[in-house]
């Protein structure tokens, strides 16, 4: 697989999860390794550089040897805040930021390429996956030139979620064909973690 130049990636690694026992969801063990390791392994070949988005620096994540990007200011700014920090700290030479959550162990290995082609084809500064008729804003690609708009939305208007942001920011939509298991399957509770473990034995 070709490593894309000019493309950076960020994993939303932030949150602790009550439903997963109060620890970092990213560190929940799946098939012998932390959940987020599955995501890192699938994203790293797709991007030139990869960072972790965290609320505040997390020593527990140092083991992954990836730079951590903290939220723009104290208090949770949600996934939009994570994207803002990642874009603001994006390496020179990169124009696009691939965004992904830490809890999707089956995410597609051709995600970046398809998002980029779709964004370029529609001449938009952002591109978001749509799967089973649902917009999946945390599987998305964003151009550097959206930084001022994001700063305004997060820091001045106090937006935290993508729904609101997407209302007045045009993006390309990448329709992804359904398959089983869903490549965007994400783990929100212990039952889903067990299901993922079963799927790992199969996929």
């Amino acid at each position, binding site marked *: 697989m070709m490593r894309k130049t000019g493309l950076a990636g960020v994993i939303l690694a932030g949150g602790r999860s009550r439903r*997963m026992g*109060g620890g970092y969801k990213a560190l929940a063990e799946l098939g012998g390794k932390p959940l987020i390791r599955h995501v890192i392994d699938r994203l790293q070949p797709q991007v030139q550089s990869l960072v972790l988005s965290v609320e505040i620096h997390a020593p527990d994540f140092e083991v992954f040897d990836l730079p951590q990007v903290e939220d723009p200011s104290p208090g949770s700014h949600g996934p939009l805040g994570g994207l803002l920090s990642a874009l603001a700290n994006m390496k020179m030479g990169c124009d696009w930021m691939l965004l992904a959550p830490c809890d999707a162990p089956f995410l597609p290995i051709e995600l970046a390429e398809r998002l980029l082609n779709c964004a370029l084809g529609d001449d938009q500064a952002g591109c978001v996956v749509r799967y089973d008729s649902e917009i999946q804003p945390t599987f998305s690609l964003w151009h550097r030139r959206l930084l001022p708009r994001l700063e305004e939305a997060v820091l001045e208007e106090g937006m935290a979620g993508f729904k609101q942001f997407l209302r007045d920011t045009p993006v390309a939509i990448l329709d992804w064909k359904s398959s089983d298991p869903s490549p965007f399957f994400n783990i929100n509770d212990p039952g889903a973690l067990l299901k993922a473990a079963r799927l*790992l034995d199969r996929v």
Partner: protein
Amino acid sequence: MQEIEQLVKMANQIADNFSFHEDAVDRLEDHLQRFWAPSMRKKLIEFLDAGGDGLKPDVIAAVQRLQFP
């Protein structure tokens, strides 16, 4: 990996998260009741009945308190 291995790891990991609380076993029991599906609790109970190899002490204590769902 065997399904039960994943369940054991999940339970042990959650026990680790709670381990610095004095009432860790209470919290663990509560967690298993609230967030684990009955079928998952059942498998853990059966596994403990069969010896429970690899379960951490807090997990054993919490699972012993669970009613068979």
